[in-house]
């Protein structure tokens, strides 16, 4: 009887709880607080934080690999295969495409330049990560955090540095959630009050034909130039074609509602579950967190600086605040531009103008990911 009781006590999670796990559980509580109370990207942070919480509870075995721990393996391990095999991020991109209106970008294609400029944060951070001792594959995966695009960061990390997937995904999504906090000080620092008050001309209407041809042309050009970007760009543009062609509304509704929600649950919980104490509590994670925020800040700054240059070249027609929206993070980054513009002039509406660079940033970060995949395959 005593033997059975002691065996039972030994099998209890509380007896096997380690300090690292306690710390990770506390981190997950902080993320849950940010997601639920502060409503920072709750759709992502809540499943990520709960996944992190579950995986750090001892002996739960939710992330057990069947090849190591024997069949049947952990529930979340199976979900995680969708991340590791690069299946979930392109599906999320398809949903994003079905929800995105590329009209502002088609009406003002110069925005593509701002989407490209904001990617400088990715490459500058790549340089920094190499200097800190990461390999090229790892540095590329860390740099992509600066693209402020969670699915792209997960996709690239799963291809190039699967061991760093947990910290990279947590950093990418946390910083996406913190866009309204990270970007405004940089935007204020780099622009004058007069520039922030610039009103931009109303965008021209875009025809249905243009909107239908756009996803096909983008896929054709980008994939012919950078074949490794095909899964991300292809799915993004397929989703957008569903939206714009107006003849497959059922498919469009599915990818932009049920499918993206289901995949977000699986992706969020499994990414959170990959952040175990042994994977997460180390110097590399701190370095990734610091590099990630730097990438983000540099991307924001270069976007604003190029917008300032374009403003000078066009004779004051471009409000530099829209440059920061070039770091994808759709639509939070565009909303920040709008809010900053309205602070300077309450009757100024920059949202539609900022959506151009914002969606260009999604294409830009997928292109940057394609560059790393082509270089480090």
């Amino acid at each position, binding site marked *: 009887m005593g033997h059975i009781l002691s065996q039972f006590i030994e099998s209890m999670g509380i007896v096997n709880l380690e300090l690292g796990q306690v710390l990770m559980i506390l981190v997950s509580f902080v993320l849950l607080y940010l997601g639920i109370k502060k409503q920072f990207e709750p759709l992502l942070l809540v499943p990520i934080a709960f996944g992190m919480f579950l995986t750090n509870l001892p002996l739960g075995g939710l992330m057990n690999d069947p090849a190591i721990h024997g069949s049947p393996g952990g529930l979340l391990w199976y979900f995680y295969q969708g991340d590791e095999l690069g299946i979930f991020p392109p599906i999320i991109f398809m949903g994003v495409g079905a929800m995105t209106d590329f009209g502002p*970008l*088609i*009406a003002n*294609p*110069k925005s*593509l*330049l701002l*989407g*490209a400029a904001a*990617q*400088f944060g*990715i*490459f*500058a951070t*790549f*340089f920094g990560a*190499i*200097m800190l001792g990461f*390999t*090229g*594959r790892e*540095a590329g995966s860390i740099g992509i955090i600066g693209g402020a695009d969670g699915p792209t960061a997960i996709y690239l990390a799963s291809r190039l540095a699967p061991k760093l997937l947990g910290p990279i995904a947590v950093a990418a999504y946390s910083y996406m959630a913190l866009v309204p906090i990270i970007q405004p000080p940089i935007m204020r620092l780099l622009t004058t009050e007069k520039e922030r008050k610039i009103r931009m001309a*109303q*965008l*021209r*209407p*875009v*025809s249905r*034909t*243009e909107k239908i*041809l*756009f996803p096909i*042309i*983008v896929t054709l*050009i*980008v994939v012919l*130039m*950078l074949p490794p970007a095909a899964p991300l760009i292809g799915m993004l543009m397929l989703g957008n074609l569903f939206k714009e062609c107006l003849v497959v509304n059922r498919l469009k509704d599915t990818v932009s509602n049920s499918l993206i929600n289901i995949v977000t649950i699986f992706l969020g919980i499994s990414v959170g579950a990959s952040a175990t104490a042994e994977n997460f509590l180390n110097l590399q994670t701190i370095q990734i967190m610091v590099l990630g925020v730097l990438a983000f800040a540099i991307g924001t700054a270069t976007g604003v600086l190029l917008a300032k240059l374009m403003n000078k070249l066009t004779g004051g027609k471009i409000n530099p605040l829209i440059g920061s929206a070039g770091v994808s993070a759709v639509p939070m980054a565009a909303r920040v531009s709008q809010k900053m513009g*309205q602070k300077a002039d*309450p*009757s100024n*509406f920059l949202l539609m103008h900022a959506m151009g660079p914002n969606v*260009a940033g999604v*294409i*830009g970060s997928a*292109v*940057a990911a394609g*560059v*790393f995949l082509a*270089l*480090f395959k």
Partner: protein
Amino acid sequence: MDLLQQFVHSELIRGLTTGDKALASFYITIMGMSITFVALCVLWGSVSLLSAIFKPGKKKKTVSQESPKVTLAAPDEMGGDDGEIISVIVAAIAATGNAPIHSFKVKSIIPTADRTPQWGRVGRIEQLTRTTKN
């Protein structure tokens, strides 16, 4: 072996000096940014070409507002930030008329007098309070 080739190799990179790593990562930074810019510039050119061919004509079906007045009520009278209210009204017209927001212009917004009887107003407030509490 070429520096860049050595650099992209996960095992060989560790044998490089810090100077070599800095040089190689600088090359990749410049090359990566250039490729990103070139790709997006090609897209810019293609989208511009697409727009030149398929740009909608000037004569489009428009939903116009008849009232010539351009006066706006004071924000307090309109119940909040006037900019926000204008945006909401424009979005509502676009949604109801199934027309893009560029195709019409709101020239005037004049709030009408509230003719709801006193009892009706009290009932509405009670309903709202109940919903909020739930």
